[in-house]
């Protein structure tokens, strides 16, 4: 019911696709990005990010970015721990600013829209009637309904930061990227194959979330790297029986050393 924009390529012919690249290898699940997002955006373009029952039984507010933690695989369960194969992954989730998002096309009022110039998906709150069709259409659960204002809200990719002339250039990135203590979040133009984020995706095997659905998410995730292996070129000496300990000490008795 709401159209996606027609392509509007830049001068060099590439279509600008701003988005995030999130490194699952280094994310420690600290929620720094989620809280910084909340803090910036509760005073930002879609302000406020209302909290219901902030001090009550079921505190529940609008968050554009949420962190989930998953375990996969099974530890051995034996008395000796750590030799199993389970992996714990911290998974930050926010709007993926898809190239073909149904959350836009289902919108009956034109409130949900994708910007032609950079691909950011936004909600015009003045048009939003709070019907929630978009949240049903989003397979990633990235939309957040503000019960108090009666409107749908979502990640703006900090549109009021990334172009903001009142900020130093280095700060013109989404709040979640700026604060990440492990540098697991990267921002850039995924439509430009030479951008830092595109190169990261190429180098690290970045992947789409649920590509089979066909929404063509712009945001990418980088997989956990294989564990570092350290060669044990020097094995520790073969087992030594107790009486040999004195001989071991004797190795050092004649060692010539200087301070």
């Amino acid at each position, binding site marked *: 019911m709401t159209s996606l924009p027609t392509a509007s390529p830049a001068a060099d012919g590439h279509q600008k696709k701003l988005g995030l690249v999130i490194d699952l290898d280094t994310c420690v699940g600290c929620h*720094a990005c989620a809280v910084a997002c909340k803090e910036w955006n509760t005073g930002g373009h879609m302000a*406020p990010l209302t909290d219901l029952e902030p001090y009550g039984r079921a505190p529940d507010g609008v968050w554009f970015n949420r962190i989930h933690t998953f375990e996969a695989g099974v530890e051995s369960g034996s008395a*000796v721990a*750590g030799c199993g194969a389970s992996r714990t992954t911290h998974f930050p989730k926010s709007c993926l600013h898809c190239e073909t998002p149904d959350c836009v096309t289902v919108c009956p009022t034109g409130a949900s829209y994708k910007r032609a110039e950079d691909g950011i998906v936004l909600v015009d709150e003045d048009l939003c009637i709070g019907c929630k069709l978009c949240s049903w259409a989003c397979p990633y659960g990235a939309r957040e309904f503000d019960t108090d204002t009666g409107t749908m809200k979502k990640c703006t990719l900090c549109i009021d930061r990334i172009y903001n002339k009142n900020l130093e250039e280095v700060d013109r990135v989404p709040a979640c990227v700026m604060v990440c203590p492990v540098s697991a979040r990267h921002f850039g133009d995924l439509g430009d194959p030479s951008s830092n984020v595109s190169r990261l995706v190429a180098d690290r095997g970045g992947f789409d979330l649920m590509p089979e659905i066909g929404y063509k998410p712009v945001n990418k995730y980088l997989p956990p790297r294989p564990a570092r292996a*350290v060669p044990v070129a020097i094995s520790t000496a073969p087992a030594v029986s107790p009486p040999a300990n004195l001989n071991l000490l004797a190795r050092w008795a004649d060692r010539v050393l200087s301070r």
Partner: protein
Amino acid sequence: MADGPGDPHDLPRFAFDPQPTEVSGSADPRPRKESWWQRFTAPRERVELSPEVEDEVKTTTCYMCACRCGVKVHLQEGRIRFIDGNRNHPVNRGVICGKGSAGIMQQYSPARLRSPLLRTGERGKGEFRAIGWDEALTIVTERLRRIRDTDPARLAFFTGRDQSQSLTGYWAAQFGTPNYAAHGGFCSVNMAAGGMYTLGGSFWEFGEPDWERARYLLLFGVAEDHDSNPIKIGLSRLKASGAKIVGINPVKTGYNAIADEWIGIRPGTDGLFALALVHELLKADRIDLDYLVRYTNAPWLVVRNPGGADDGLFARDGQGRVLAWDRDADTAVPAERADLSPLLVGEKRLPDGRFAVPVFQLMAARYLDPSYAPEAVAERCGIAAETIRRIAGEIAHVAFQQQVVIEQPWTDWAGRRHDRMIGRPVAMHAMRGISAHSNGFHTCRALHLLQLLLGSVDVPGGWRYKPPYPRPAPPGPFPAGWRGEPAAGKPLAGSPLGYPLGPEHLLVDAAGRPERLDKAFSWEYPLAVHGMLHMVITNAWAGDPYPIDTLFLYMSNMAWNSSMHTGAVMRMLTDRDPATGEYRIPFIVYSDAFDSETVSFADLVLPDTTYLERWDCISLLDRPIGSADGPADAIRRPVVAPDRDVRPFQDVLIELGVRLGLPAFANPDGSARYPGGYPDYIVNHQRQPGLGPLAGWRGRDGTEHGRGEPNPDQLERYMENDCFWMQELPPEQRFFKHANKDYLETAVRLGFIERAEPVVHQLWSEPLQRFRLAAQGFGERQPPDHLRPRIATYFDPLPLWYEPLEHEAFDQAAYPLSAITQRPMPMYHSWGSHNAWLRQIYAHNDIFMSRALGVELGLANGDWVWIASPHGRIKARLRLMEGVNRHTVWTWNAIGKRQGAWNLKADAPEAHQGFLLNHIINELLPDRGGARFSNSDPVTGQAAWYDLRVAIEPATADEAGETSPQAEPQGLPAGMAPSPSINSYGTWLRTRRRQRARERSKQP
């Protein structure tokens, strides 16, 4: 929104619904005058891409945990728009964690205390009358003056996680009470003491891994904690550089989840694991002998005279210089000689006829013993022997085959020039999982031994000191008490806390009884260098070793998560002497910024400001910040004005000092020495001539650093420099600081150390041996007989491992599981997990168990269970997971809250689905022959809360749904409005933007 059933997201609400009336903040900002159709047909919204971010930015220092990151507070109309990290700051380099960003909700928390409070109801109820400051301070002054004039020890002054201990400790010394400490005894004193007695530095605050150059990192017991952002930044750098990260922790969350290898060790066995690694390295001769002879006491000669008064002490010459055996001269010479060619193995006869052996020999012989072999420790540690052997091989490979070389000449302590800096890139970091066990001191020493054998202390790629460390190991001074009769009305001769070198420095009376209320520095806990916060209430209640009059607490939630055995502690705080009807602890004064659980137990409450409302200093005299590349300190400055009748605690303390006439705070005529309060003190106080709370911009003209006259414009200079000072060390001073001539001379100039002498790492700790000799019957000061075996056992001059004391004390078959806690990262060390945003991440806690064990016990995810220890039982909900040691259960700490506290609603999940493990941790060990020791490390008095053993049993169906125990609700203090049921912070900003846009559009 009224509280109602169901998920609010299920309730449809449309844009044209009437707006709810119960909105905190401004009204809905969206214009509603035009019709929906008008809006629908209007042109697409114009996104304001460059809204104003602030009217003003003020830099300051965060206080949401112990990291002390630099932050920028963006203000509009005097209110906070945004808090972000300061890119120039040495601690966080621009990043900020979830707590830091949530500071905005801390600042506007409805749980902030609003005025001084005087108790009107029974203790613990939270019934108060609001009073003025003059009345409050008059009450305190009169009480404290009487105490000081008669018996100053009857004031116990204990603080929590505050960052002004150089002031609070100084104030206690001025008052004349030895009963002072902060929360280190409850937290990490084992790390501090283990490090200071071995290296003259320690993990975390006094050192850090070389994040830039390390190739291999071992993280021992780091449970999402100290320190937060620097570890995260560092792990990210290691990931980028391809270093291997090994997490040794019973629980695989956070940092351990992203480690290349997780070793799910059994709690309390890290020392055994470390010593098995030591065994392997020694056996394979993969140790850095050059490093050992240059920088450690490995060649020092130890007297062998079993049964003699000097056994185990260092051999010294007539001038008191420690001796080593020189191979070339074939005689004992002062070990400090630079041209020494030391003997490491062999017994030698000293000129005076005694026999002695080098430290190295004693050390190597100990750990080559098969009892430290991987096979011998594997089962106890829960780590396969082949894994231990492989890790030993890996660290040996990285240390010796991948050495890091910096082409940077430097000069050693003896003046010898070295062409380059060679490092062993194996770094280590360790924290609570090591610290909070009763064997933690020795475990920490074992880790340092491992580092030293690898030659990886303050070398490129290793673990590095953060100036003002290193200091001598141990650094002194020793603690000050009276050592005899209390001196009423007089200051102590020194600081209440310090580093004893032997029995002569204990704070005990002629009969050997503790002089301090918490029994720190007594024969029971001789090296309790941070005091023993966790014993204060128990001992005050019991009048053991003596009763007190007033308990004065600051920012320490002693009636809840900062005590062991919380239920019992709450009873002690409210217990009355039947003979007199009076409370056994007669008077409690408490200062806090928030309505914590402890507030309700106070007789008088002194409300503190938030961290954004006051001056503060993060001082090199106290708990330094900075990095291995240079010392740093910092200030906080008021960013917003308080809107309540509250005062910064430090100002209050200084004013009390004036009212009491304490010589450091009052002039002889009674006037204030620092009439400007804390900021005046920060600038003008001098601990020694030229040394004050802040090191930067000293001297009248602000050109001196470290030492210098007070500078009246010092705080201005700090504010111009983003509220911190850092002196980058030149490249030749950045490594080998313990033996680097240029660095040591810099350290003397800056006032960190007194003499530019090398800091020699202590593999063999002579202070420990001095205590052991006393226990064996030597020396003037000896322990009471019942303590002799304890001291003789645990004061081993070499690191040892023993079963945690509580594990030994109870039937392990009846309590087969270890139970531990960790703080979640968004709440690590934060003062106020009631924060409106953070509690949306964690508002309750479950008990986590290995899925395999759960299946074996017939338990399922979500079951309600009883967690029973020898001291009681609590009820909680169970979660099963993979990444946890099979013999361990764990939970998030300090989520559970008392109903009514922190201005949370009565039905808040923190109170009903949250719990504290503290309830079933006893602060005392079982009676052993008439003596009950604290459940603490016998060397340092560190609270051993990770020693807890439990059994898990299913709860019945009708017991499900609520945690147990449930404390009686605490009331809302007078003058505090109930917390709002909706938070729309930021609405005002949108309104303001709209207004500005309209104004702009009207302009021609």
